[in-house]
């Protein structure tokens, strides 16, 4: 089932300098899609268009076959949870509990019910022991987990992660990746749209959309995208380390095509007698 459908979307901040050019794609319910592209490729603008923070110059966005307009935007936003890049820019509450409560308060959820919900989602992201803590005492990864709990607590059908891991340290990054996997197991109909330039992270998703200069340059399964080295190179995207190394060795006349990991490459480079 189509969850998000984008048709011929166009947008420019300044006249005659289009940022998003005739972009069309569909995202199915329950899928995990990464949008990859370099700075200025139009990824983040696309996310803002999807939740109606910006209005397109042309084209249409449908969420569950409902056209996004001034009239429908409030209803559509209820279905979408958004997590931004900078954990410090999205903390509102004085404590973790307050912060998760913020969205619920806006929805006028009853107090008793709210406690229940907060506890449930704090547990979900592994932050239940931090409910009375100040945000400033949390690490970046913990803050992002709280932001995700806040988004999940409203029961969204779609979660948009806008470079949600790019400011985190390696441990924080892997925590969030695991959490994404768990969220999908909990709720198989949850649609996840992740905007990222971490290739290793994009590799985990079902589908990758590569944006370049406001257009979709490539779309497909991770294996398809990453086996297409020419595309990656031309778009200035990084290849996963092993693939890059194999490429380099190949151009030196060393064939490591069959080597799957570092051990097997080491075997070719220095065979044990």
């Amino acid at each position, binding site marked *: 089932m189509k969850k998000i459908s984008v048709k011929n979307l166009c947008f420019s*901040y*300044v006249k005659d300098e289009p940022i998003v050019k005739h972009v069309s794609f569909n995202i199915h319910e329950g899928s995990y899609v990464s949008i990859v*592209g*370099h*700075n*200025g490729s139009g990824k983040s603008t696309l996310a803002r268009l999807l939740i109606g923070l910006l209005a397109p110059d042309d084209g249409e966005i449908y969420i569950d076959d409902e056209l996004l307009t001034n009239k429908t935007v409030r209803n559509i936003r209820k279905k979408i949870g958004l997590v931004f*890049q*900078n954990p410090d820019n999205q903390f509102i509450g004085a404590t973790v509990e307050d912060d998760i409560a913020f969205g619920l308060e806006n929805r006028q959820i009853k107090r008793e019910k709210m406690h229940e919900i907060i506890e449930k989602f704090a547990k979900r992201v592994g932050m239940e022991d931090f409910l009375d803590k100040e945000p400033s005492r949390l*690490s*970046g*990864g913990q803050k992002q987990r709280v932001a995700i709990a806040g988004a999940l607590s409203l029961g969204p059908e779609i979660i948009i992660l806008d*470079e949600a891991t*790019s*400011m*985190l*340290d*390696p*441990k*924080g990054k892997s925590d969030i990746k695991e959490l994404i996997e768990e969220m999908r197991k909990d709720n198989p109909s949850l649609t996840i749209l992740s905007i990222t*330039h971490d290739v290793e992270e994009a590799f985990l998703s079902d589908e990758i959309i590569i944006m370049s200069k406001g257009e979709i340059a490539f779309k497909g399964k991770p294996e398809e995208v990453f086996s297409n080295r020419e595309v990656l190179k031309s778009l*200035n*995207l*990084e290849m996963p*380390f*092993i693939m*890059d*190394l194999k490429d*380099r*060795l190949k151009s*030196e006349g*060393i064939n490591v095509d069959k080597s799957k990991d*570092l*051990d097997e*490459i*080491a075997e070719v*480079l*220095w065979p*044990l007698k």
Partner: protein
Amino acid sequence: MAIEVKNLFYIYGRKTPYQQTALDDVSLTIPTGSFVGLIGRTGSGKSTLVQNLNALLIPTEGEIIVDEFHIGNKKRKNKKIKQLRKHLSLVFQFPEYQLFEETVEKDVAFGLMNFGYKQNEAIELAHKALLSVGLDEKYFKRSPFELSGGERRRVAIAGILAINPDILVLDEPTAGLDVKGSKDIMSLVKQMHEDGKTIIMVTHDMDLVLRYTEQCFVLKDGKVTFGGSTNQLFDTISDDSAIEIPPLFKLAKKLKDRGAPINIENIKNAEDLIKQVNSWRKK
């Protein structure tokens, strides 16, 4: 020595219930002209340390000597702070968030004017700094807010370069940038190092640490747990430590373990490894 840190302690919220020791007896030296990495997990004290280096934070105990400047725990005795900040400048994480002026050139000139330059002088130096980060005349009169993330980062770094510090401290200079943006920024940093500046880079990216730094310091819970050659660090730590060994270096280690004649001290990037592999293949 460019920097000497002696028995430095820093405690946040001292004598309150929130008291927290961020730096716990840190001592280290950084030679002039070196390229040093500062690594450790979030909350290990890296940022607190760099903020002590240019007196944004005043040591709770201990002292710091930065060339001719001295920073101790008595605020009033710390003289010439302004000159110190001109000598050792900090590029914060996500420096582009601090851009505020209406044009790029004004933003870069702002710091210079704070250091007493006249407007026309400041603008002239700003242009030079912008050119050195690869932003030409077309950018001078534009609003910084119309630029892409990578371009904005370059404007912010130009603002620091214009001041022409001898020691440059960069906090996660490539975070949030794409491959091209990161490469551009790092080749800029490398150029500054080759021009004789002392560079201190705080980062989580171990590939960058391996590729660019000669030495590094590892902080954990406010203590220095390692100080020495970068390659030696990756050679001695085990796989399960908090520091991720770059895959390239892992491969080099595997080759060493198999008995290959590899010189692990010289491996900084893939080219280095391939060069060594080729040298034994030819034999």
